[in-house]
Structures are given as C-alpha cells and as structure tokens.
C-alpha cells in the first residue's frame, strides 16, 4: 500500500520537477539574493558584504517610507475602485446585453486593441492632451468655461490615477467577463420569476457568482499598481512618488542594499494584501 502511494508520488514529483526548477531558478533564488543583499552595507561605488540592520532600520523609521506607502495605497485603492466600477460595467454589458456570442467576441477583442501599443506610448499620449496649453485646457478656454488653464490635469495625482485606470481596466474586464459568461441565464430568469428587482438580481445573483473574477482582477490591478514606477514618473512629472519610485531612485544611485531592503518590504506588503484577498474567495474551487 505504502509503496504504491510512493510510486505514484514519485511520478507526480517528476512531473512537477521542471516547473519547480524554473520557479526556483527565476523566482526563489533571486528573491533570496535580494534578501541577502538587503542586509549588506554600501558606499558610493560598491556594496560591502556585512550583516547590518541599518537599511531596514532607516527604511522602517523614516517618515519618507510611511508617506510613500500611504501614497502608494492611495493610488492602489483609488485605481482598484475605478477599474472595478468600469470593468464590471463593461463586462456586465458584454455578458448580459450582447446576445450573439460572435458580437461578444468582436466587442471584447475591440477592448484589447489599445494593448497592441506599448503602455508607455499610451501613457505619453495623454501629455499633449492634459498640459497647460493642451487640448483639454485650450478647448475649455475657447468655449469660455474657464479663463485660467487647469493645473491639476497634468503632473498630479489626477493624471497618475487617470493613466492607471486607462492602462489597467482591461485586467479587470477580462476575468469578470470570463466568470460572468459561466453564469447560467436560467438563474437570472428564476430570480425574475420570483419577483426580484433588477438591483436584487445584481446584488444577490450576479455579484456573488462573479466574485472569483472580481478578486482575480483586483489582484492583477493591485499588484501592478503597487510595483509601478513608470506611470508615476511620467504622469507625475517626477514631482510625485510612490514606494517603487523610492526603490528606482536608490537603484539609479547605486544604493543596491537599500533598494533591496525596500523591495523586500514591498514584497511582504503585497503578499499580505494578497493573503487577505485570497481569504475572500477560494480560487481553486471557483476555477
């Protein structure tokens, strides 16, 4: 009996071996290295193998870190909220209002068209639109709605969130659409027959049944925003900062150990948030 189980186990271990190897080599090993380096010392031009806690001590006691985390969470949650609102609406429309499945596919593919260009290009294209003398400001001024250009449009939190929503909404649409497509329409009909209002159908039938999609989408958006520095750098005009910008600055100034410590703390934070999200839904069961 035991030998039989062992034999079976050995076979499945062999099957999972290639993937394990790849993950160890490209995920676990680099993280361990970053972890080790985060305890090293450094000067202007070299990193010094020594065990010090100074990197973490400075990181965790500095008000800069806390401010940056606050800002990062602000970006992440606002983006999450907006992409969820838009993404859910789009997915709902595609899944329940478009009747033919051919049309559904066409419209869904249409959503992905912007993703044929690089996300930096999509981001930069906002700049001439939002600038002080940009299209939006000159348009509003010429119709007489404002007489001073709106300054908050560019190089601001507004611009950053706008770019995030633009870039990441599709990551919300796809999983939600996917889980909505698997909702049995007879459930909705049954709810109507039982006298449920449209709002009740949404609240008690559709949202609970699309929960896995919502959570998966949230995980995508959240992790993407937490680790992003390009959007903040470009749309914030270098004047705004989140945690990833701090790490990016440290790397560009050769302060690898400090950057490694920052990366470790960010990793831990993101994992903690993911654990909370996974609590809300049993992904394995839902898939």
């Amino acid at each position, binding site marked *: 009996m035991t030998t039989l189980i062992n034999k079976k186990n050995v076979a499945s271990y062999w099957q999972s071996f290639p993937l394990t190897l790849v993950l160890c080599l490209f995920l676990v090993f680099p993280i361990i290295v970053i972890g080790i380096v985060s305890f090293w010392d450094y*000067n*202007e*031009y*070299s990193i010094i193998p020594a065990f010090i806690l100074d990197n973490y001590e*400075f990181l965790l006691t*500095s*008000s*800069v870190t806390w*401010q*940056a985390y606050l*800002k990062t969470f602000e970006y992440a949650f606002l983006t999450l909220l907006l992409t969820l609102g838009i993404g859910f609406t789009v997915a709902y429309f595609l899944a329940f209002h478009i009747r033919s499945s051919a049309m559904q596919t066409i419209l869904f593919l249409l959503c992905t068209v912007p993703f044929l260009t690089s996300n930096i290009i999509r981001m930069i294209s906002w*700049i*001439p639109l939002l*600038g*002080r*003398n940009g299209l939006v400001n000159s348009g509003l001024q010429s119709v007489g709605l404002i007489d001073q250009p709106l*300054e908050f449009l*560019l*190089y601001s939190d507004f611009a950053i969130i706008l770019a995030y929503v633009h870039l990441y909404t599709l990551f919300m649409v796809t999983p939600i659409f996917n889980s909505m497509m698997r909702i049995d329409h007879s459930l909705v009909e049954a709810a109507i027959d039982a006298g449920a209002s449209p709002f009740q159908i949404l609240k008690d039938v559709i949202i609970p049944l699309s929960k896995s999609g919502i959570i998966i989408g949230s995980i995508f958006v959240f992790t993407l925003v937490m680790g992003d520095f390009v959007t903040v750098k470009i749309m914030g*005009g*270098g*004047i705004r*900062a989140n945690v990833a*910008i*701090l790490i990016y*600055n*440290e*790397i*560009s*100034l*050769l*302060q690898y150990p400090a950057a490694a410590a920052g990366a470790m703390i960010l990793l831990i934070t993101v994992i903690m948030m993911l654990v909370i999200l996974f609590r809300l839904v049993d992904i394995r069961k839902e898939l």
Partner: protein
Amino acid sequence: MNEKDSNPKTSTETKTGVTRRDLIKGVAGASAVALGSGAITGFPMVWAQNIKNITLRQFGTGVSNLNAIAEKCKEDLGFNLQLTSLDSDSVTQRAVTQPKSYDIADIEYWICKKVFPSGVMQPLDVSRLKNYDKISPLFINGKLTPDSTIAQGTAPHTVGFVEEKGSKNFAKSPTNWMTLIPTIYNADTLGVRPDLVGRPITQWSDIMDPAFKGKTSILNIPAIGIMDAAMICESMGVIKYGDKGNMTRQEIDTTMKVLMDAKRAGQFRAFWKSFDESVNLMASGEVVIQSMWSPAVAAVRSRGIPCVYQPLKEGYRAWGGGLGLASHLSGLELDAAYEYIDWYLSGWVGAYLNRQGYYSAAPETSKAFMSDDEWGFWIEGKEAKGDILSPSGDVMEKAGATRDGGSYWDRMGKVACWNSVMDENKYMVRKWNEFIVS
C-alpha cells in the same frame, strides 16, 4: 569580415591581385581576405590593417556620444567606435556594475569620483599622448588663468590624477597618470522663456519668485540638483556655505528644507531627469524658468521658441567630462584607445563640440578646425558676422547674434562651483528622496 570566411581558393587568387596601393587606399575587403588567409604576414601595413577589425565600445551621456564622432573616427583612424548614450545615473551604474561591457567610459568628473576608486578603470599614461600639453590648465591645476581662483565642488583637477599606475587614490598634484582625459565641459545656468517670464531674470533666486508659482522646474539628479539648490539658497540669502561642493549635514538640511517648503507651496511644476524631458517642459510652456543644459536650450530654440540660457549674477555651476579606459583593455585595443583619445584632442571633435555650445578641453587645436567667425561667436563672445550653423548644418543663430554669457573666459571665469560628490553623499541622497516624496 564575411569575406574572410569565403573559400580559401578565392583568397589565394586575391593574393596575387593585392597591390601595395590597394592596401594603402584601405580597400578593406580585398586586403582583409588576404590577411585572413595569412598570405601576407609580415607586411609593413599589418598593424594598420588589423586595426580595422577593432571595435572600441564607448558609453556615456548624450552630450558627447554622437554618431558624427564615430563616423569621423572610422574615417581618420580606421577602426570602429560603437557608442551608447545613457542618462547620468545610468552611466554611473553601468560603469561600476558592468565594467566588461565597455572599453572607453565617457564620464563626468563627479561620476569619476564615485567610479574610479572601485577599480573598474585604469589610469592613462599621459606621456603616450602627443596632445597632452594642449589640454587647458583648468584640468591640470584648476586655474583657467594663472591668477584665477579655484571653484568649489569636485573640480576636475582634484580627481584628474592618481599617484601611479594601478593606484586608486587621487593625487593632489599632476602626475604622469591621469584618470580621465578631459574632452568637454561647460558652465550651466538657468534656462528662461523670455516671452513668458515678463521680467528680467538676474539671479539664481528668481526661480523661487512666487510670480512663477507652478511654472518652475529643477533637475532630479541629486548630485547636480543639490548644487543648483545651493546656488539658489545662497542667492536667496538663506545660507552661506563653507563649501557648496562638500556640505555639512546641517547645510544639507537647510538646503533641503528650502526646497521642500517651495515644493509644498506649489512652486515646482515638475522635475526632470533627462535632456528630452527638460526640452519638452520648456517648449510646451509647462515651465518658464528651470535648471537646464545648454544644448537643451538650443533644442528649444531650434523649434522656433524663444529660450535664453541666462547668465546670473552669482555665476555658473560647471561640469566637465572626459574619456577613461576600462581596466580590462590591453594590447592592440589599448593602443587603439590611446590613438583615439589623442585624436579626440587633436581638434576636429573639439570644434564639433564647440559648435554645440560646449567647450573643448584642448582649445587651441579646435581653433584650427573652426572659421574665424565661428571662433569669434562661440569662444570670443563676438557678434556673428554670418549665420551660425549647427554641426549638422542648420541655422542656429542669425548674423548679428551674440552668445548668452559672452566669451569663454567670461563664462568659465565665473564658475562658482563644480558638480560634485560630497562626503555626506549617502545622507544627501536620503534627504533628496525625502524631498521628492514630500
């Protein structure tokens, strides 16, 4: 190269066809085949032919890593120069972390102060350079003229020499071993949009004028930004530094507080890190006054938008760059690198750089490659007699224009400080990060 691989029969045939004149003319194809087959070993031109196969990899900032230089190098010296241009921080990073990825580092002196002690570069034997004595004394003893005072900060001559071959410690006075051979330098100041500021700009503190609220920018490269900030703070009368280029923690705190207060009050529109960013900010009118580099001002002007590289009462913040050798370089490549560096100082490149608004480290050799009018405009600060053309042939200034800030001696003589790396660099960078996040 491909022809080398072709079948040996062809090469024996070519052998008979190769004449001395073909080789001298540099018909690379035919001779490379002959050389590849080993047919003409011992021929006096072997060295000159071998050198054609050499490629020197050079990297540095966008200011001097220009394709025109690589092309001219190929034409004059026969070997290939492969250029990579990066921003200042990436240059520092690459120099230290990937020393095998380059042969020649085109870096600035403040970067050299960080990079050289890490041992990735070898000092240059100046006795091998024919043009060594043409280098401006500014890089040898720090003085533009015998009676000028040495500016604050990391002045190039302080990190220009090491005691001996293989040493990593900077020498106090000139020796036979140089860390970088200086090539290019300039005096930086604020860039201004005269059509939008509406008043004369005369001093560094003008950037903090509340009238320009939300319309100013400074650069976000800490080692350079802190020097601009120091010029601003001193001009505002907030602080008088012992040495701007080597501040105490207290001085750093005071400086950064001024910046942070200004940021909170909404004085800045954005911070820039690369050349293009600064050009776009200025050309689009997002900012009207900002720290800027001379060619960026020229780039804005070339779009037909007025922009002035404003000389200011407190003087300039200067920087200098030079060419250094990677420590792995040896043999024929090393010989080629020496030849290249000597060629760099021999005038053509100097003239090219002068025409871009920078200064050549060997002024007298570059003079021979410029017209009297060009020399008068760029170096002597005289009124241009004819149109002044950029190196690529576009009209940069109309006849009758004079250069912002006047002559070479006026500008370089008013340098208040050099870009620098301080003893408290680590602390300064932390404070700078705090400023960006605040």
